[in-house]
C-alpha cells in the first residue's frame, strides 16, 4: 500500500521534475557554451597576448575561481539590481556561472595549448604560417582534442552547480523538487532521492557521450604511443 502510494507520488511528480530538468539542461548548455567561447579566448589571450592582457586575464580567472558560486549568483542577481541592471534570474545565472565556467575552462585550454610540442609550431612558422594561422590550424585542433577529457569533468561540475540557481529563483529541477515536497507535506526523502537519481543519470549520459566524442577524434596510432598503452598491452 505504502509502496503504491510512493509510486503514485513519483509518477505524479515526474512531469514537473522533467520540466525542471529541461531548464537544468538549458542552464547547463548556456553555462558551458559561454564558458567554452569565452574560455578559448581567455586561453589564447593568456598564451599569445601581451603581458598586460595576460595579467588581466589571470586576475579575472582568479577572482571567478575564488568566489563561491552562490555568492557570484547573488552578486549578479541582487547586486546588479542595485545598479539598475534588472537581469532575469536566468540571465544573471548565465553571467555568474557562465563566466565562472569560462575561468575554469580557460585553464583547461591553456594547459592543452601549452602542451602542444613547440617543434610543430616551429615547423608551421617555417613554412610561412603567421602566428595566428599556426594557432588556428595546428595548435587549436590538437589542444581542443586534448581538452575533451578534462572538459567532461567540467560538464559534470557545471551540471551539478545549476542546482544553485534555485537560490535566486530559477525554476530548475531542484526548485521543482522543492515545490513538490512543499505541496505534498514532507515527502522530502523520496522526492530528493528521485532528483538525485535524475542528476546522476544526466551526468552519466553526458560523460559517456563526451567519451565517445573523444574516441571519435582519437588520432590513429598516436594515443597508443602517447600513453604507453602499447607497453601495457604487451605485458
Amino acid at each position, binding site marked *: 500500500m505504502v509502496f503504491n502510494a510512493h509510486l503514485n507520488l513519483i509518477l505524479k511528480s515526474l512531469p514537473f521534475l522533467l520540466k525542471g530538468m529541461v531548464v537544468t539542461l538549458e542552464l547547463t548548455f548556456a553555462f558551458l557554451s559561454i564558458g567554452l567561447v569565452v574560455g578559448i579566448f581567455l586561453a589564447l589571450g593568456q598564451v599569445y597576448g601581451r603581458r598586460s592582457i595576460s595579467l588581466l586575464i589571470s586576475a579575472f580567472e582568479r577572482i571567478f575561481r575564488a568566489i563561491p558560486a552562490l555568492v557570484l549568483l547573488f552578486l549578479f542577481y541582487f547586486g546588479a539590481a542595485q545598479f539598475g541592471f534588472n537581469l532575469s534570474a536566468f540571465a544573471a545565472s548565465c553571467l555568474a556561472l557562465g563566466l565562472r565556467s569560462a575561468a575554469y575552462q580557460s585553464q583547461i585550454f591553456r594547459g592543452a595549448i601549452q602542451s602542444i*610540442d613547440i*617543434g*610543430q609550431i*616551429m*615547423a*608551421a*612558422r*617555417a*613554412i*610561412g*604560417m*603567421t602566428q595566428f*594561422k599556426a594557432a588556428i*590550424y*595546428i595548435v587549436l*585542433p*590538437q589542444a581542443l*582534442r586534448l581538452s575533451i577529457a578534462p572538459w567532461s569533468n567540467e560538464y559534470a561540475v557545471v551540471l551539478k552547480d545549476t542546482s544553485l540557481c534555485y537560490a535566486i529563483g530559477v525554476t530548475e529541477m531542484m526548485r521543482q523538487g522543492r515545490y513538490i515536497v512543499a505541496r505534498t507535506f514532507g515527502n522530502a526523502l523520496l522526492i530528493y532521492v528521485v532528483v538525485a537519481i535524475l542528476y546522476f543519470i544526466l551526468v552519466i549520459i553526458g560523460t559517456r557521450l563526451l567519451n565517445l566524442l573523444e574516441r571519435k577524434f582519437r*588520432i*590513429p*596510432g*598516436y594515443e*597508443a*604511443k602517447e600513453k604507453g598503452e602499447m607497453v601495457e598491452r604487451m605485458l
Partner: protein
Amino acid sequence: MMDNVILKVENLYKNYGELEVLKGISFEVKKGEAKVIIGPSGTGKSTLLRCINRLTNPDSGRIWLDGKEITASDVKINQIRSSIGMVFQDFNLFTHLKVIDNVRIGPMKVKGIPKREATELAIDELKKVGLENKVDSYPAELSGGQQQRVSIARALAMKPKLILFDEPTSALDPELIGEVLTVMIDLAKNGMTMLVVSHEMGFARSVASKIIFLEHGVIVEEGPPERIFNKPKCKRTAEFLHKITDLYGDTKHENDS
C-alpha cells in the same frame, strides 16, 4: 654577378645573453648546390639555420636570398619563410593531420592554392619521396624514416628556393637512415639547392660541393669534400673528422662500390 647565388650570409653574429653563439659567419650557397655543415655539438649549427629563415633573429650581419636582403627591416618574413624549406631532426610533423594534409596545408593556407591543385601537388611531392601510398596515414602510424620523408615532401610542396636540413637523420634508427639519405641525394642530383647540417659523410661525399666546418661559432674551414677529408688545412678539422668517422662509421666503401 650574384645571379646564381641563392643564399649569401655576411658576417652573422648571434648571442644568447652572455653566450656568443655565432661570431661572424660568412658564406654563400649557389643555385643547385648542396653544402654540408659539420661541427661539434653546441657550436651553433642549428642557430645558424634558424637565423637563415629568421626563426631566430641574428644580432647583426646580413642575409640575402636570391638577391633580396631578408635581414632588411621592411621584409615580409612569412613570405620569405615560405620560400625556404626546413627539415628538422625530429620531423615535427603535424600529428593531428594525415600525411596528405601535412603536405598540402602549406600550399593551401600559406599560398592560397585551391584544394584540388594543392592535393595534386602534394601527391607529386609524396611520389618523389616514395610515399604516395601513405597519403591517408597519420604520422604516428609511420616509421621515423617515413616521417622524415613526409617532412621533406612538406618542404618541397612549398616550391622552396633552398632547403635547410638540420641533422635530418640523427633521430633515426641506423637501418632507416639510408631511405632518407637516398631521397636527399636524389634531390641534390635533381638540382635542389640545399644547406645540410649532417655528419653523414656518405651524403657529403656523394653530393656535397663543399663542406663547412663550424666550431665555436666560427667557420674553421670550408672546402670540397675530397680536400676536407684528405688534406684538411686545420688540425681541428682532421681531429673532428676522426671523431665522427669513429662515431658514424666511414661510409666511403658503400659509395665507392
